[in-house]
């Protein structure tokens, strides 16, 4: 279920300026469509995570860059592992 920019701002509680910066930094990668940006649930969850890293964990901009990059790689590896397990015929739990 895609959200418009306005819907995303409402759902994530982000400020417009913050959203623009995060998109520019490629922390958020909404889909670009002819009728504007389209956001998904995963973007809301990611925005919440970025907010927490920033305000509560105290990561700075460079830190968030690194964390997000490594985290996405970690998820990539987890998916690859899950895929391997499936391919090798292990029953799914």
């Amino acid at each position, binding site marked *: 279920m895609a959200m418009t920019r306005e819907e995303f701002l409402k759902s994530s509680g982000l400020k417009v300026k913050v959203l623009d910066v995060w998109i520019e930094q490629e922390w958020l*990668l909404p*889909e670009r469509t002819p009728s504007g940006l389209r956001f*998904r*649930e*995963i973007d809301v*969850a*990611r925005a*919440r*995570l970025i907010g*927490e890293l920033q305000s*509560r*964990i*105290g990561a700075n901009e460079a830190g968030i860059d690194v*964390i*997000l*990059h490594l*985290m*996405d*790689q*970690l*998820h*990539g*590896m*987890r*998916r*690859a592992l899950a*895929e*391997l397990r499936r*391919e*090798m015929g292990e029953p799914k739990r």
Partner: protein
Amino acid sequence: MQNPYEVLGVPSSATAAEIQSAYRKLAKKLHPDLNPGDKAAEEKFKEVAAAYDLLGDADKRKRFDAGEIDASGAERPPRQSYYRDYAGAQADHSYADASGYADFMDGDDIFADLLRRSQKARTNRRGEDMHYRLEISFADSIAGATRRITLPDGGTLDVKIPPGLVSGQTIRLKGKGAPGFGTGGPGDALIEVDVLHDPRFTREGDDITIELPVSLSEAVLGGRVRVPTATGAVTMAVPKGSNTGTTLRLKGKGAPKRGGGSGDQLVKLKVVLPGKPDPDLEAFVSGWEKGKSFNPREEG
């Protein structure tokens, strides 16, 4: 809920900075998104977060210390989901990143192969173009046609063949290839068309040449004959005194041109005598004086 000071592991005399530092240490260890594989992390993190909600806020901490509110008052509504719930489950989101193991995919072992396959299913990627071959008759290549091809997966594809197509030409059906992944969109179907040879017709550019056998009397006296064309037989007048090699032009009966209109069909006549010797013809020719002095091997 437990005593928030115990949860964060700080004495009740801790400064705000100490509380924040303790929380950050624990959050780094327990945040579900920093521990995507640890199912228990979420519960533990919730407690820590609730404790910090209470103690990290000077006003709330004061009221808690004064006994005005208890720890449960700070409990937050259960959070619905973390980033890991999306990033882990969906294969096709825009944050997917294989660079953590891309080097493992280079090998030719089974492990690399499995990884490559799983990788294919993950990133936003346009579907592959699918290549097919299709044989059509010469007549269809001139007139155009619609042919249905059956795909390896059992599906079918209707291929519209434009009039005038030549052998080896490829028809592209946008979006009819393999499905894409994520936002990639499907690939195209590329159908290479082979035009089957028809022994009667030879195509040169937009013109079609045909060799048409005519009888001696049709050649000498002229007449109307039926001529096959790519789009069906037509009647054509053979002028009196035609010969083998005489080429007649049927306007517009060739292949359609790109910009509109059509080429011509060139009909090359070939005079053919009856297959069996004919006594009447022999008698006629032996009485034909001029025929004896005509030598087609001499010029003029």
